[in-house]
Protein backbone atom coordinates (compact mmCIF):
# COMPACT_ATOMS: atom_id res chain seq x y z
CA UNK A 1 0.00 0.00 0.00
CA UNK A 2 1.54 3.27 -1.11
CA UNK A 3 -0.25 5.12 1.71
CA UNK A 4 2.14 3.31 4.06
CA UNK A 5 5.19 2.67 1.88
CA UNK A 6 5.47 6.28 0.72
CA UNK A 7 4.18 7.85 3.91
CA UNK A 8 6.73 10.39 5.27
CA UNK A 9 4.84 10.72 8.58
CA UNK A 10 5.23 7.01 9.26
CA UNK A 11 8.95 7.00 8.51
CA UNK A 12 9.52 10.20 10.47
CA UNK A 13 7.78 8.80 13.56
CA UNK A 14 9.55 5.46 13.31
CA UNK A 15 12.90 7.20 12.92
CA UNK A 16 12.13 9.44 15.89
CA UNK A 17 11.32 6.42 18.04
CA UNK A 18 14.49 4.66 17.01
CA UNK A 19 16.77 7.66 17.36
CA UNK A 20 16.64 10.30 20.00
CA UNK A 21 19.31 12.98 19.81
CA UNK A 22 18.77 13.93 23.39
CA UNK A 23 19.45 10.41 24.58
CA UNK A 24 23.14 10.08 25.31
CA UNK A 25 25.07 7.37 23.47
CA UNK A 26 25.83 5.55 26.74
CA UNK A 27 22.10 5.52 27.55
CA UNK A 28 21.31 4.10 24.14
CA UNK A 29 23.86 1.32 24.66
CA UNK A 30 22.36 0.61 28.10
CA UNK A 31 18.86 0.39 26.64
CA UNK A 32 20.01 -1.99 23.89
CA UNK A 33 21.88 -4.18 26.40
CA UNK A 34 18.92 -4.28 28.83
CA UNK A 35 16.47 -5.16 26.05
CA UNK A 36 18.83 -7.84 24.69
CA UNK A 37 19.34 -9.40 28.12
CA UNK A 38 15.58 -9.29 28.79
CA UNK A 39 14.87 -11.17 25.58
CA UNK A 40 17.56 -13.74 26.39
CA UNK A 41 16.21 -14.17 29.92
CA UNK A 42 12.67 -14.46 28.61
CA UNK A 43 13.63 -17.21 26.19
CA UNK A 44 15.88 -18.97 28.69
CA UNK A 45 13.33 -19.12 31.49
CA UNK A 46 10.34 -19.45 29.14
CA UNK A 47 11.76 -22.40 27.21
CA UNK A 48 13.04 -24.04 30.38
CA UNK A 49 9.58 -23.73 31.92
CA UNK A 50 7.84 -25.10 28.84
CA UNK A 51 10.24 -28.01 28.36
CA UNK A 52 10.20 -28.84 32.05
CA UNK A 53 6.41 -28.91 32.11
CA UNK A 54 5.57 -32.54 32.60
CA UNK A 55 1.92 -32.14 31.80
CA UNK A 56 -0.15 -30.50 29.11
CA UNK A 57 -2.00 -28.63 31.83
CA UNK A 58 1.17 -26.99 33.10
CA UNK A 59 2.16 -26.06 29.54
CA UNK A 60 -1.33 -24.61 29.04
CA UNK A 61 -0.88 -22.52 32.20
CA UNK A 62 2.42 -21.23 30.83
CA UNK A 63 0.73 -20.42 27.52
CA UNK A 64 -1.91 -18.43 29.41
CA UNK A 65 0.82 -16.70 31.39
CA UNK A 66 2.57 -15.60 28.18
CA UNK A 67 -0.56 -14.52 26.31
CA UNK A 68 -2.54 -12.89 29.12
CA UNK A 69 -0.15 -12.30 32.00
CA UNK A 70 2.68 -10.84 29.98
CA UNK A 71 1.71 -9.93 26.39
CA UNK A 72 -1.81 -8.56 26.93
CA UNK A 73 -0.69 -6.64 30.04
CA UNK A 74 2.31 -5.28 28.17
CA UNK A 75 0.07 -4.16 25.31
CA UNK A 76 -2.41 -2.47 27.65
CA UNK A 77 0.36 -0.49 29.32
CA UNK A 78 2.49 0.24 26.29
CA UNK A 79 0.15 0.87 23.35
CA UNK A 80 -2.07 3.71 24.69
CA UNK A 81 0.97 5.68 25.86
CA UNK A 82 2.79 5.18 22.54
CA UNK A 83 -0.22 6.28 20.51
CA UNK A 84 -1.65 9.03 22.73
CA UNK A 85 1.28 11.36 22.13
CA UNK A 86 1.38 10.95 18.37
CA UNK A 87 -0.67 14.03 17.42
CA UNK A 88 -0.53 16.06 20.63
CA UNK A 89 3.27 16.13 20.47
CA UNK A 90 3.05 17.68 16.99
CA UNK A 91 0.70 20.30 18.43
CA UNK A 92 2.96 20.93 21.41
CA UNK A 93 6.05 21.40 19.27
CA UNK A 94 4.03 23.56 16.84
CA UNK A 95 4.61 21.39 13.80
CA UNK A 96 1.02 20.23 13.39
CA UNK A 97 -0.12 23.07 11.10
CA UNK A 98 2.87 22.51 8.83
CA UNK A 99 1.77 18.88 8.42
CA UNK A 100 -1.83 19.87 7.71
CA UNK A 101 -0.78 22.44 5.13
CA UNK A 102 1.38 19.97 3.24
CA UNK A 103 -0.06 17.84 0.48
CA UNK A 104 -0.47 14.88 2.81
CA UNK A 105 -4.03 13.63 3.06
CA UNK A 106 -5.58 13.35 6.53
CA UNK A 107 -5.69 9.58 6.02
CA UNK A 108 -1.94 9.52 5.43
CA UNK A 109 -1.25 11.57 8.55
CA UNK A 110 -3.53 9.54 10.81
CA UNK A 111 -2.51 6.15 9.41
CA UNK A 112 1.16 7.14 9.50
CA UNK A 113 0.85 8.01 13.18
CA UNK A 114 -1.19 4.86 13.85
CA UNK A 115 1.15 2.42 12.17
CA UNK A 116 4.17 4.05 13.82
CA UNK A 117 2.48 3.40 17.18
CA UNK A 118 1.52 -0.17 16.27
CA UNK A 119 4.82 -1.44 14.86
CA UNK A 120 7.00 -1.47 18.04
CA UNK A 121 4.46 -3.50 20.08
CA UNK A 122 3.95 -5.72 17.04
CA UNK A 123 7.67 -6.44 17.14
CA UNK A 124 7.32 -7.45 20.79
CA UNK A 125 4.47 -9.81 19.90
CA UNK A 126 6.63 -11.29 17.14
CA UNK A 127 9.38 -11.92 19.71
CA UNK A 128 6.91 -13.81 21.90
CA UNK A 129 5.40 -15.79 19.03
CA UNK A 130 7.91 -18.73 19.07
CA UNK A 131 7.46 -19.11 22.83
CA UNK A 132 3.67 -19.03 22.51
CA UNK A 133 3.77 -21.60 19.75
CA UNK A 134 6.11 -23.96 21.62
CA UNK A 135 3.94 -23.82 24.73
CA UNK A 136 0.78 -24.31 22.64
CA UNK A 137 2.18 -27.40 20.89
CA UNK A 138 3.27 -29.01 24.16
CA UNK A 139 -0.09 -28.13 25.73
CA UNK A 140 -1.96 -29.71 22.81
CA UNK A 141 -3.95 -26.57 22.17
CA UNK A 142 -6.14 -26.76 19.08
CA UNK A 143 -4.89 -24.80 16.05
CA UNK A 144 -8.14 -22.80 15.91
CA UNK A 145 -7.60 -21.71 19.52
CA UNK A 146 -4.01 -20.70 18.75
CA UNK A 147 -5.33 -18.67 15.84
CA UNK A 148 -8.03 -17.05 17.96
CA UNK A 149 -5.50 -16.19 20.66
CA UNK A 150 -3.19 -14.64 18.09
CA UNK A 151 -6.06 -12.63 16.65
CA UNK A 152 -7.03 -11.60 20.18
CA UNK A 153 -3.57 -10.13 20.74
CA UNK A 154 -3.64 -8.32 17.39
CA UNK A 155 -7.17 -7.03 18.05
CA UNK A 156 -6.06 -5.71 21.45
CA UNK A 157 -3.06 -4.01 19.86
CA UNK A 158 -5.04 -2.42 17.01
CA UNK A 159 -7.94 -1.29 19.20
CA UNK A 160 -5.93 0.33 21.98
CA UNK A 161 -3.59 1.99 19.47
CA UNK A 162 -6.66 3.45 17.77
CA UNK A 163 -7.97 4.62 21.16
CA UNK A 164 -4.61 6.31 21.75
CA UNK A 165 -4.53 8.04 18.35
CA UNK A 166 -8.15 9.13 18.72
CA UNK A 167 -7.46 10.63 22.16
CA UNK A 168 -4.37 12.30 20.71
CA UNK A 169 -6.51 13.88 18.00
CA UNK A 170 -9.25 14.87 20.45
CA UNK A 171 -7.04 16.36 23.18
CA UNK A 172 -4.64 19.27 23.04
CA UNK A 173 -2.05 18.05 25.51
CA UNK A 174 -0.16 14.76 25.61
CA UNK A 175 -0.76 14.42 29.33
CA UNK A 176 -4.53 14.71 28.89
CA UNK A 177 -4.52 12.40 25.87
CA UNK A 178 -2.60 9.81 27.89
CA UNK A 179 -5.01 10.14 30.79
CA UNK A 180 -8.01 9.76 28.46
CA UNK A 181 -6.51 6.72 26.70
CA UNK A 182 -5.74 5.02 30.00
CA UNK A 183 -9.22 5.88 31.30
CA UNK A 184 -10.72 4.00 28.34
CA UNK A 185 -8.31 1.11 28.93
CA UNK A 186 -9.17 1.15 32.63
CA UNK A 187 -12.87 0.99 31.83
CA UNK A 188 -12.46 -2.18 29.74
CA UNK A 189 -10.04 -3.84 32.18
CA UNK A 190 -11.54 -2.86 35.55
CA UNK A 191 -14.80 -1.12 34.69
CA UNK A 192 -16.36 -4.18 33.07
CA UNK A 193 -15.72 -6.15 36.26
CA UNK A 194 -17.25 -3.37 38.34
CA UNK A 195 -20.27 -3.43 36.03
CA UNK A 196 -20.52 -7.17 36.56
CA UNK A 197 -20.39 -6.79 40.35
CA UNK A 198 -23.07 -4.08 40.27
CA UNK A 199 -25.25 -6.12 37.94
CA UNK A 200 -24.82 -9.21 40.09
CA UNK A 201 -25.92 -7.27 43.15
CA UNK A 202 -29.06 -6.16 41.32
CA UNK A 203 -29.84 -9.68 40.14
CA UNK A 204 -29.16 -11.17 43.54
CA UNK A 205 -31.98 -9.04 44.89
CA UNK A 206 -34.27 -10.82 42.46
CA UNK A 207 -32.94 -14.23 43.63
CA UNK A 208 -31.39 -14.89 40.23
CA UNK A 209 -27.68 -15.57 39.78
CA UNK A 210 -25.73 -13.84 37.06
CA UNK A 211 -23.19 -16.11 35.37
CA UNK A 212 -19.83 -14.51 34.55
CA UNK A 213 -19.68 -16.19 31.15
CA UNK A 214 -23.02 -14.71 30.14
CA UNK A 215 -22.38 -11.13 31.17
CA UNK A 216 -21.77 -9.54 27.76
CA UNK A 217 -19.73 -6.46 28.85
CA UNK A 218 -17.15 -8.84 30.27
CA UNK A 219 -16.63 -10.26 26.79
CA UNK A 220 -15.04 -6.92 25.95
CA UNK A 221 -12.57 -7.22 28.82
CA UNK A 222 -9.15 -7.93 27.26
CA UNK A 223 -8.50 -10.80 29.67
CA UNK A 224 -11.84 -12.54 29.71
CA UNK A 225 -12.39 -13.98 26.17
CA UNK A 226 -9.09 -15.92 26.13
CA UNK A 227 -9.74 -17.14 29.68
CA UNK A 228 -13.16 -18.43 28.60
CA UNK A 229 -11.67 -19.94 25.44
CA UNK A 230 -8.93 -21.79 27.34
CA UNK A 231 -11.26 -23.04 30.04
CA UNK A 232 -11.46 -26.77 29.28
CA UNK A 233 -14.83 -27.18 30.92
CA UNK A 234 -16.64 -24.47 29.02
CA UNK A 235 -14.38 -23.58 26.01
CA UNK A 236 -16.46 -20.63 24.83
CA UNK A 237 -15.47 -19.42 21.35
CA UNK A 238 -18.15 -16.74 20.97
CA UNK A 239 -16.68 -14.22 23.45
CA UNK A 240 -13.39 -14.34 21.57
CA UNK A 241 -15.12 -13.78 18.25
CA UNK A 242 -17.18 -10.91 19.70
CA UNK A 243 -14.07 -9.35 21.23
CA UNK A 244 -12.08 -9.60 17.99
CA UNK A 245 -14.89 -8.15 15.87
CA UNK A 246 -15.49 -5.40 18.43
CA UNK A 247 -11.82 -4.41 18.54
CA UNK A 248 -11.26 -4.35 14.78
CA UNK A 249 -14.54 -2.51 14.13
CA UNK A 250 -13.87 -0.07 16.97
CA UNK A 251 -10.35 0.64 15.72
CA UNK A 252 -11.64 1.22 12.19
CA UNK A 253 -14.39 3.59 13.36
CA UNK A 254 -12.14 5.60 15.68
CA UNK A 255 -9.57 6.13 12.94
CA UNK A 256 -12.27 6.97 10.43
CA UNK A 257 -13.75 9.65 12.71
CA UNK A 258 -10.32 11.22 13.29
CA UNK A 259 -9.58 11.23 9.54
CA UNK A 260 -12.94 12.68 8.55
CA UNK A 261 -12.80 15.41 11.18
CA UNK A 262 -9.27 16.25 10.19
CA UNK A 263 -10.40 16.82 6.62
CA UNK A 264 -12.47 19.74 7.89
CA UNK A 265 -9.40 21.51 9.24
CA UNK A 266 -7.35 21.74 12.40
CA UNK A 267 -9.48 21.20 15.45
CA UNK A 268 -7.50 23.52 17.66
CA UNK A 269 -8.36 26.52 15.50
CA UNK A 270 -12.12 26.02 15.57
CA UNK A 271 -13.50 28.34 18.20
Amino acid sequence: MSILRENPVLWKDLRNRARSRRRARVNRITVVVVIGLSILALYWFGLRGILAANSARLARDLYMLFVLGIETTLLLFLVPSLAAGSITQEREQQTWNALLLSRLRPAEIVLGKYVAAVLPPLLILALFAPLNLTAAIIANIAPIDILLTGLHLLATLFFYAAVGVFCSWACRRTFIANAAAFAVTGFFVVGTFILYVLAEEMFRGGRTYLVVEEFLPLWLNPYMPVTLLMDRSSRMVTPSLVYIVFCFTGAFLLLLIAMRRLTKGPKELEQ
Partner: protein
Amino acid sequence: MPMVELVNLRKEYKNLVAVKGLSLSLEPGDIFGFIGPNGAGKTTTIKMLATLLEPTSGVARVDGIDVTDDVEAVRARIGYMPDAFGVYDDFKVWEYLDFFCAAYRVPRSDRPGLIDMVLDLTSLTEKKDAFVDELSRGMKQRLCLAKTLVHDPKVLLLDEPASGLDPRARIEIKELLKELRSMGKTIIVSSHILPELADFCTSVGIIERGELIVSGPIEEIMRSVLGHRVLEIRVPENDRPRAKEVLEEVPHVRAVKLVGETFRVDYDGTLDDQSEVLLALIHGGVRVQSFAEQDTDLEDIFLRVTKGLVA
Protein backbone atom coordinates in the same frame (compact mmCIF):
# COMPACT_ATOMS: atom_id res chain seq x y z
CA MET B 1 -6.03 38.54 -12.22
CA PRO B 2 -4.87 39.46 -8.70
CA MET B 3 -2.66 36.89 -7.01
CA VAL B 4 -4.29 37.55 -3.65
CA GLU B 5 -7.74 39.02 -3.30
CA LEU B 6 -9.75 39.65 -0.17
CA VAL B 7 -13.30 40.97 -0.46
CA ASN B 8 -15.16 41.99 2.69
CA LEU B 9 -13.42 39.25 4.62
CA ARG B 10 -14.83 38.78 8.09
CA LYS B 11 -14.03 36.43 10.94
CA GLU B 12 -16.12 36.18 14.07
CA TYR B 13 -15.47 34.18 17.16
CA LYS B 14 -18.04 33.73 19.89
CA ASN B 15 -17.95 37.21 21.35
CA LEU B 16 -15.35 38.80 19.17
CA VAL B 17 -15.10 40.10 15.63
CA ALA B 18 -11.46 39.50 14.76
CA VAL B 19 -11.59 40.76 11.18
CA LYS B 20 -14.24 43.23 9.93
CA GLY B 21 -14.88 43.39 6.20
CA LEU B 22 -11.28 43.46 5.06
CA SER B 23 -10.67 44.03 1.33
CA LEU B 24 -7.35 43.88 -0.43
CA SER B 25 -5.90 43.07 -3.83
CA LEU B 26 -2.30 42.10 -4.59
CA GLU B 27 -0.75 41.57 -7.99
CA PRO B 28 1.96 38.97 -8.71
CA GLY B 29 5.29 40.16 -7.32
CA ASP B 30 3.76 42.50 -4.75
CA ILE B 31 5.22 42.60 -1.27
CA PHE B 32 2.53 43.62 1.18
CA GLY B 33 3.45 44.66 4.70
CA PHE B 34 0.74 43.99 7.22
CA ILE B 35 1.05 46.37 10.15
CA GLY B 36 -0.97 46.51 13.30
CA PRO B 37 -0.78 46.23 17.05
CA ASN B 38 -1.07 42.85 18.76
CA GLY B 39 -4.56 41.42 18.45
CA ALA B 40 -5.42 43.65 15.48
CA GLY B 41 -6.34 40.70 13.24
CA LYS B 42 -3.17 40.24 11.19
CA THR B 43 -2.61 36.60 12.14
CA THR B 44 -6.30 35.75 11.75
CA THR B 45 -6.29 37.20 8.23
CA ILE B 46 -3.13 35.34 7.30
CA LYS B 47 -4.53 32.10 8.73
CA MET B 48 -7.68 32.49 6.67
CA LEU B 49 -5.55 32.89 3.56
CA ALA B 50 -3.53 29.86 4.63
CA THR B 51 -6.75 27.78 4.84
CA LEU B 52 -6.22 27.21 8.55
CA LEU B 53 -9.29 29.24 9.48
CA GLU B 54 -12.58 29.46 7.69
CA PRO B 55 -13.92 32.98 7.08
CA THR B 56 -17.28 33.80 8.63
CA SER B 57 -18.20 35.74 5.52
CA GLY B 58 -16.53 37.41 2.54
CA VAL B 59 -14.16 35.98 0.01
CA ALA B 60 -10.45 35.19 0.06
CA ARG B 61 -8.83 34.07 -3.17
CA VAL B 62 -5.30 32.95 -3.96
CA ASP B 63 -4.43 32.88 -7.64
CA GLY B 64 -8.15 33.13 -8.37
CA ILE B 65 -9.06 30.14 -6.19
CA ASP B 66 -11.40 30.61 -3.26
CA VAL B 67 -9.73 29.38 -0.06
CA THR B 68 -12.93 27.63 1.01
CA ASP B 69 -13.67 26.02 -2.36
CA ASP B 70 -10.46 24.18 -3.14
CA VAL B 71 -8.27 23.93 -0.08
CA GLU B 72 -5.79 21.54 -1.73
CA ALA B 73 -5.19 23.84 -4.70
CA VAL B 74 -4.70 26.86 -2.43
CA ARG B 75 -2.27 24.97 -0.20
CA ALA B 76 -0.22 24.02 -3.24
CA ARG B 77 0.15 27.72 -4.06
CA ILE B 78 1.00 29.10 -0.64
CA GLY B 79 3.95 28.85 1.71
CA TYR B 80 2.97 29.71 5.27
CA MET B 81 5.41 30.56 8.01
CA PRO B 82 3.68 31.15 11.36
CA ASP B 83 5.01 33.48 14.03
CA ALA B 84 5.36 30.58 16.44
CA PHE B 85 6.68 27.56 14.59
CA GLY B 86 8.30 24.33 15.58
CA VAL B 87 10.93 22.11 14.06
CA TYR B 88 11.83 18.46 14.50
CA ASP B 89 14.85 18.74 16.77
CA ASP B 90 15.99 15.15 16.27
CA PHE B 91 16.34 15.63 12.52
CA LYS B 92 19.34 16.78 10.59
CA VAL B 93 18.75 19.90 8.51
CA TRP B 94 18.65 17.99 5.20
CA GLU B 95 16.40 15.29 6.72
CA TYR B 96 13.97 17.96 7.87
CA LEU B 97 13.76 19.43 4.38
CA ASP B 98 13.60 15.97 2.81
CA PHE B 99 10.61 15.18 5.03
CA PHE B 100 8.74 18.24 3.79
CA CYS B 101 9.76 17.53 0.19
CA ALA B 102 8.12 14.12 0.61
CA ALA B 103 5.10 15.73 2.30
CA TYR B 104 4.72 18.03 -0.71
CA ARG B 105 5.14 15.09 -3.09
CA VAL B 106 8.40 16.24 -4.63
CA PRO B 107 9.73 13.26 -6.64
CA ARG B 108 12.50 11.43 -4.80
CA SER B 109 15.03 12.05 -7.59
CA ASP B 110 14.45 15.84 -7.48
CA ARG B 111 14.86 16.21 -3.74
CA PRO B 112 18.67 16.40 -3.31
CA GLY B 113 18.98 19.21 -5.86
CA LEU B 114 15.99 21.06 -4.45
CA ILE B 115 17.28 20.78 -0.89
CA ASP B 116 20.68 22.13 -1.94
CA MET B 117 18.94 25.02 -3.72
CA VAL B 118 16.80 26.12 -0.78
CA LEU B 119 19.73 25.68 1.60
CA ASP B 120 21.80 27.91 -0.65
CA LEU B 121 19.00 30.46 -0.85
CA THR B 122 18.67 30.57 2.92
CA SER B 123 22.45 30.47 3.49
CA LEU B 124 22.27 27.22 5.41
CA THR B 125 24.40 25.05 3.13
CA GLU B 126 27.12 24.72 5.78
CA LYS B 127 24.55 23.41 8.25
CA LYS B 128 23.19 20.72 5.96
CA ASP B 129 24.37 17.85 8.18
CA ALA B 130 23.86 19.61 11.51
CA PHE B 131 21.04 18.58 13.80
CA VAL B 132 18.18 21.06 13.89
CA ASP B 133 18.46 21.57 17.64
CA GLU B 134 22.03 22.81 17.16
CA LEU B 135 20.86 25.79 15.08
CA SER B 136 20.44 29.30 16.45
CA ARG B 137 16.98 30.87 16.46
CA GLY B 138 17.78 32.90 13.38
CA MET B 139 18.94 29.79 11.53
CA LYS B 140 15.81 27.92 12.58
CA GLN B 141 13.78 30.83 11.24
CA ARG B 142 15.60 30.54 7.92
CA LEU B 143 15.17 26.77 7.95
CA CYS B 144 11.44 27.22 8.45
CA LEU B 145 11.42 29.62 5.51
CA ALA B 146 13.40 27.07 3.46
CA LYS B 147 10.73 24.50 4.32
CA THR B 148 7.98 26.79 3.04
CA LEU B 149 9.84 27.09 -0.29
CA VAL B 150 10.31 23.41 -1.16
CA HIS B 151 7.11 23.24 -3.22
CA ASP B 152 7.86 26.54 -5.00
CA PRO B 153 4.77 28.43 -3.78
CA LYS B 154 3.54 31.50 -5.65
CA VAL B 155 2.44 33.25 -2.46
CA LEU B 156 4.34 33.46 0.80
CA LEU B 157 2.47 34.24 3.99
CA LEU B 158 5.00 35.24 6.62
CA ASP B 159 3.69 36.03 10.06
CA GLU B 160 6.25 38.05 12.03
CA PRO B 161 9.24 36.38 10.37
CA ALA B 162 11.74 38.59 12.19
CA SER B 163 10.26 38.42 15.68
CA GLY B 164 12.65 37.45 18.43
CA LEU B 165 15.71 37.76 16.22
CA ASP B 166 18.83 39.76 16.94
CA PRO B 167 19.66 42.65 14.58
CA ARG B 168 22.03 40.59 12.46
CA ALA B 169 19.52 37.77 11.98
CA ARG B 170 16.86 40.36 11.13
CA ILE B 171 19.05 41.79 8.40
CA GLU B 172 19.62 38.27 7.05
CA ILE B 173 15.88 37.62 6.91
CA LYS B 174 15.33 40.99 5.25
CA GLU B 175 17.93 40.18 2.59
CA LEU B 176 16.30 36.81 2.05
CA LEU B 177 12.91 38.43 1.52
CA LYS B 178 14.43 40.81 -1.01
CA GLU B 179 15.85 37.78 -2.82
CA LEU B 180 12.43 36.13 -2.83
CA ARG B 181 10.89 39.32 -4.20
CA SER B 182 13.37 39.21 -7.05
CA MET B 183 12.14 35.67 -7.75
CA GLY B 184 8.67 37.05 -8.38
CA LYS B 185 6.94 35.69 -5.29
CA THR B 186 3.94 37.54 -3.93
CA ILE B 187 4.62 38.04 -0.25
CA ILE B 188 2.41 39.06 2.62
CA VAL B 189 4.54 39.82 5.63
CA SER B 190 3.36 40.98 9.00
CA SER B 191 5.78 42.68 11.29
CA HIS B 192 6.00 45.20 14.05
CA ILE B 193 9.49 46.27 12.98
CA LEU B 194 8.15 48.97 10.71
CA PRO B 195 11.29 50.56 9.24
CA GLU B 196 12.28 47.15 7.90
CA LEU B 197 8.97 46.73 6.12
CA ALA B 198 9.26 50.16 4.55
CA ASP B 199 12.54 49.06 3.04
CA PHE B 200 11.20 46.44 0.69
CA CYS B 201 7.39 46.44 0.73
CA THR B 202 5.66 47.64 -2.39
CA SER B 203 2.57 48.41 -0.32
CA VAL B 204 1.46 48.29 3.27
CA GLY B 205 -1.80 48.01 5.15
CA ILE B 206 -2.48 49.20 8.66
CA ILE B 207 -5.00 47.15 10.55
CA GLU B 208 -6.50 47.90 13.93
CA ARG B 209 -9.31 46.11 15.75
CA GLY B 210 -9.95 43.99 12.68
CA GLU B 211 -10.31 46.90 10.28
CA LEU B 212 -7.93 47.85 7.52
CA ILE B 213 -7.59 51.56 8.20
CA VAL B 214 -5.32 52.48 5.31
CA SER B 215 -3.55 50.51 2.62
CA GLY B 216 -1.55 51.18 -0.51
CA PRO B 217 1.97 52.17 -1.56
CA ILE B 218 3.89 53.78 1.31
CA GLU B 219 4.31 57.13 -0.54
CA GLU B 220 0.58 57.39 -1.20
CA ILE B 221 -0.26 56.59 2.39
CA MET B 222 2.17 59.20 3.64
CA ARG B 223 0.54 61.83 1.43
CA SER B 224 -2.98 60.89 2.39
CA VAL B 225 -2.33 60.40 6.08
CA LEU B 226 -0.06 63.32 6.77
CA GLY B 227 -1.28 65.91 4.24
CA HIS B 228 1.15 68.42 5.73
CA ARG B 229 4.81 68.60 6.72
CA VAL B 230 6.65 69.42 9.88
CA LEU B 231 9.55 71.84 9.49
CA GLU B 232 12.32 71.91 12.06
CA ILE B 233 13.99 75.32 12.39
CA ARG B 234 16.79 76.23 14.74
CA VAL B 235 17.64 79.85 15.57
CA PRO B 236 19.77 81.52 18.30
CA GLU B 237 18.02 82.02 21.64
CA ASN B 238 17.86 85.82 21.28
CA ASP B 239 16.10 85.57 17.91
CA ARG B 240 13.41 83.14 19.04
CA PRO B 241 10.66 85.71 19.93
CA ARG B 242 11.12 87.44 16.59
CA ALA B 243 11.23 84.14 14.73
CA LYS B 244 7.93 83.08 16.31
CA GLU B 245 6.29 86.34 15.21
CA VAL B 246 7.54 85.98 11.65
CA LEU B 247 6.60 82.34 11.33
CA GLU B 248 3.05 82.89 12.54
CA GLU B 249 2.49 85.38 9.72
CA VAL B 250 3.73 83.12 6.90
CA PRO B 251 0.90 81.67 4.77
CA HIS B 252 0.16 77.91 5.21
CA VAL B 253 1.79 77.82 8.65
CA ARG B 254 -0.80 76.12 10.90
CA ALA B 255 1.10 76.04 14.18
CA VAL B 256 4.46 76.96 15.65
CA LYS B 257 5.81 75.16 18.67
CA LEU B 258 9.18 75.43 20.42
CA VAL B 259 10.47 72.00 21.40
CA GLY B 260 13.79 72.26 23.23
CA GLU B 261 15.91 74.52 21.07
CA THR B 262 14.01 73.82 17.85
CA PHE B 263 10.86 75.28 16.38
CA ARG B 264 8.44 72.69 15.02
CA VAL B 265 6.35 74.29 12.33
CA ASP B 266 3.19 72.55 11.10
CA TYR B 267 3.07 73.55 7.43
CA ASP B 268 0.43 72.60 4.86
CA GLY B 269 1.87 74.37 1.82
CA THR B 270 3.48 72.70 -1.18
CA LEU B 271 7.13 71.85 -1.43
CA ASP B 272 7.68 74.87 -3.73
CA ASP B 273 6.05 77.22 -1.23
CA GLN B 274 8.22 75.89 1.56
CA SER B 275 11.11 78.18 0.62
CA GLU B 276 8.88 81.15 1.48
CA VAL B 277 9.21 80.22 5.14
CA LEU B 278 12.97 80.47 5.03
CA LEU B 279 12.84 83.72 3.03
CA ALA B 280 10.43 85.28 5.52
CA LEU B 281 12.73 84.45 8.40
CA ILE B 282 15.77 85.89 6.68
CA HIS B 283 13.90 89.05 5.60
CA GLY B 284 12.64 89.37 9.16
CA GLY B 285 16.25 89.53 10.39
CA VAL B 286 16.25 86.10 12.03
CA ARG B 287 19.57 84.24 11.96
CA VAL B 288 18.69 80.71 10.86
CA GLN B 289 21.05 78.02 12.12
CA SER B 290 19.26 75.07 10.52
CA PHE B 291 16.15 74.52 8.42
CA ALA B 292 14.89 71.05 7.54
CA GLU B 293 11.79 69.03 6.93
CA GLN B 294 11.20 66.43 9.61
CA ASP B 295 11.66 62.88 8.36
CA THR B 296 8.37 61.03 8.35
CA ASP B 297 8.48 57.28 8.30
CA LEU B 298 6.16 54.35 8.56
CA GLU B 299 6.34 54.48 12.32
CA ASP B 300 4.91 58.03 12.37
CA ILE B 301 2.11 57.02 10.07
CA PHE B 302 1.39 53.93 12.13
CA LEU B 303 1.26 55.93 15.34
CA ARG B 304 -0.99 58.59 13.82
CA VAL B 305 -3.34 56.08 12.27
CA THR B 306 -3.62 53.75 15.24
CA LYS B 307 -4.11 56.66 17.63
CA GLY B 308 -7.25 57.49 15.73
CA LEU B 309 -5.80 60.62 14.13
CA VAL B 310 -6.86 59.24 10.79
CA ALA B 311 -9.94 57.10 10.27
